[in-house]
């Protein structure tokens, strides 16, 4: 019996029953969601120590390996499962108009995010991904303004397009291998998928799952959605959900698709993402969209990191992801009250000194100023790229450095405005205590990581090593090494 299942199932069950609970007691409905998420987070933490020795695999319904659906928990997956659970808890929607529905949606987001991170079956990943997409439509549209409906619809169009392509990619994989289990695919891939069909499947799935990961050509939705959704939802989508989509792409890359062309595609798209995102952020005139565009740029850095072959790439990508996981939600929470034009922020530091100081700290880390974790994360990306000694990777490293100076330019523009001495005609709104506390909590995590840099890096390295070892995956899922063709 495996308690990890409950991390996925309990939030779903509660979401189904929430409106019924609400009839019995409004108070119970209000607290049920956070309590369930606390419980699932506790389950996750209790399982965590076991995973450093060996990952856990289980079968939904207890069927044999290639027949049923596998749930695979390694440190990498559970890290992000915990991230979405705790992230949802911290950024619990506070939407007075539709509280009940928003709570259901948040629960569903936590449950499906966990499932996505732990799933070991290609089609199951697709279904989890689709559910997460539908839930995020609800969270965005939950604001109820005409702008949020329009941006959701445009997001839905891009996302629906991507999902159908991903499905076609899955069809190609199943056609070639006759299985959907990632462990079995990992065994069969060198033989069956190391060809044009496999590459086509990879590109289709990259575009499909890349929609949420803000991959370059399919990220038109990002600025609109983050500008129209509530800040908490933007923080969740940019901070955690995009990482989950990236996690899927990483898993597929590690286990199934080994073509060198795949890495080149990732590198090129990553570079384009960095360039387009940072330039657009530089031009942006309001904080929300500036953060949205810069998040496209940061996701681009992660794609570049992924394109580095071997363990170093996954380690670097993981470091950037974890850094961004803390940083972006915090920034979006600060943008909650600083939403409008940057011009209007003049002198806001006087009203909310803590928030302004935090913003400076986050900006410095985002740019990559030495003692802060952002610097080490970027260093981890750039060093192996230079070591590869290939022109395109040199160019990628150059782009990351150039992007850092752009980031410095536009973020300091905001900081200068915040500390502007000029008197303002409109008084600034102070941040809600909950938002500020959450942002400070996340920022404190960043500072704490400065002092624990070495153990943290070791831990991330071991997580990356566990995630990149294909034989561990295969051994855990199917201990009696599956012979291709014979199913016991």
């Amino acid at each position, binding site marked *: 019996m495996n308690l990890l299942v409950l991390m996925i199932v309990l939030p779903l069950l509660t979401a189904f029953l929430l409106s019924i609970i609400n009839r019995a007691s409004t108070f119970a409905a209000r607290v049920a969601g956070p309590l369930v998420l606390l419980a699932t987070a506790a389950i996750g933490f209790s399982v965590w120590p076991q995973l450093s020795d060996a990952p856990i695999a289980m079968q939904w319904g207890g069927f044999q390996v290639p027949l049923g659906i596998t749930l695979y928990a390694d440190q990498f997956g559970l890290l992000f499962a915990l991230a979405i659970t705790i992230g949802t808890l911290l950024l619990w929607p506070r939407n007075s108009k539709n509280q009940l529905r928003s709570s259901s949606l948040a629960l569903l987001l936590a449950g499906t995010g966990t499932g996505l991170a732990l799933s070991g079956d290609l089609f199951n990943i697709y279904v989890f991904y689709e559910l997460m997409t539908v839930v995020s439509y609800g969270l965005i549209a939950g604001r109820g303004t005409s702008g949020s409906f329009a941006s959701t619809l445009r997001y839905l169009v891009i996302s629906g397009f991507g999902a159908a392509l991903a499905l076609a990619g899955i069809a190609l994989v199943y056609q070639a291998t006759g299985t959907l289990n990632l462990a*079995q695919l990992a065994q069969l891939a060198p033989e069956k998928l190391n060809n044009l069909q496999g590459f086509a499947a990879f590109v289709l799935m990259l575009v499909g799952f890349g929609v949420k990961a803000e991959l370059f050509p399919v990220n038109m939705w990002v600025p609109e959605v983050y500008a129209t959704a509530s800040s908490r939802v933007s923080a969740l989508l940019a901070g955690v959900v995009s990482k989950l989509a990236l996690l899927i792409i990483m898993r597929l890359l590690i286990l199934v698709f080994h073509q060198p062309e795949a890495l080149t595609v990732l590198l090129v798209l990553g570079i384009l993402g960095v360039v387009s995102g940072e330039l657009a952020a530089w031009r942006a005139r309001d904080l929300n969209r500036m953060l949205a565009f810069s998040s496209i740029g940061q996701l681009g850095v992660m794609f570049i990191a992924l394109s580095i072959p071997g363990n170093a790439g996954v380690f670097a990508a993981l470091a950037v992801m974890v850094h961004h996981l803390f940083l972006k939600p915090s920034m979006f929470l600060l943008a909650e009250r600083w939403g409008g034009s940057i011009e209007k922020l003049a002198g806001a530091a006087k009203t909310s000194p803590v928030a302004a100081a935090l913003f400076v700290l986050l900006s410095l880390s985002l740019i990559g100023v030495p003692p802060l974790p952002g610097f080490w994360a970027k260093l981890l990306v750039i060093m192996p790229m230079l070591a590869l000694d290939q022109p395109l990777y040199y160019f990628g490293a150059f782009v990351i450095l150039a992007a850092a100076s752009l980031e410095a330019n536009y973020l300091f523009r905001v900081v200068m405005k915040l500390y502007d001495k000029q008197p303002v005609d409109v008084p600034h709104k102070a941040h809600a205590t909950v938002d500020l506390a959450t942002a400070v909590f996340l920022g404190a995590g960043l500072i704490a990581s400065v002092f624990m840099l070495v153990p943290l890096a070791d831990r991330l390295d071991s997580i990356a090593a566990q995630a990149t070892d294909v034989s561990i995956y295969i051994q855990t899922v199917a201990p009696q090494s599956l012979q291709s063709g014979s199913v016991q």
Partner: protein
Amino acid sequence: MRRFTAALFLLGLGVMIAAIYQHMDFSNTAVNAGQAINVVAAQETGAANFVTSVVLAYRGIDTLLELTILFTAAMIGGMVLGRRRIDAPRDPDAGFILRTGADLLFPLLLVVGLYIILHGHLTPGGGFQGGVILASAFFLPLLARPGITLIDQRIVSLVEGLAGATFILIGLLAMFDGKEFLTPLFDKGELGALISAGSLPVLYLAVGIKVGAELAGLLAHLAEAEALD
């Protein structure tokens, strides 16, 4: 100009697909999870319809998620469309044929829908197909007489919540038994009998009712959306 480039893009895409198709290998049947399921399904699940075995047993979690997607979509649909204003103009009643037809078809659709759901483990069909028929049974009167309240939204939400919860609770029941989540339970019975395949028909009944409730709710929301001025 834009159409021309788009056409060119599609042409290029078509050529690429043709190239991929040329390289596709249709010979391999060596590994196949599906054929392996065909061998063991009758014994493992006791359902005569192997597609049902896959939907409810081997890939049961997919089905649960799919129900959740419908649940979420219906919930968001309701949230997005909102309630209509009381004074909003309504469409007039439909003609005699549609009204009479709807009245006559209503019980028939209910019976057919339930039949298809209950025989899902034996014959083609099942919870989804039957659920859609159930939904159409409740939607047809709405088309014939816009504005009637055939089903209370509160009952719909109760039914959809409980049906979804039933699915999960059956899964959890297996966990209390020391097995994995969603392991088929109960006696498998005789292959091909109406009461067989253990807990699968119960799951399919929950699926059917849930699909029916969600789709009926979604369609009702869409039909209730106020006409544009």
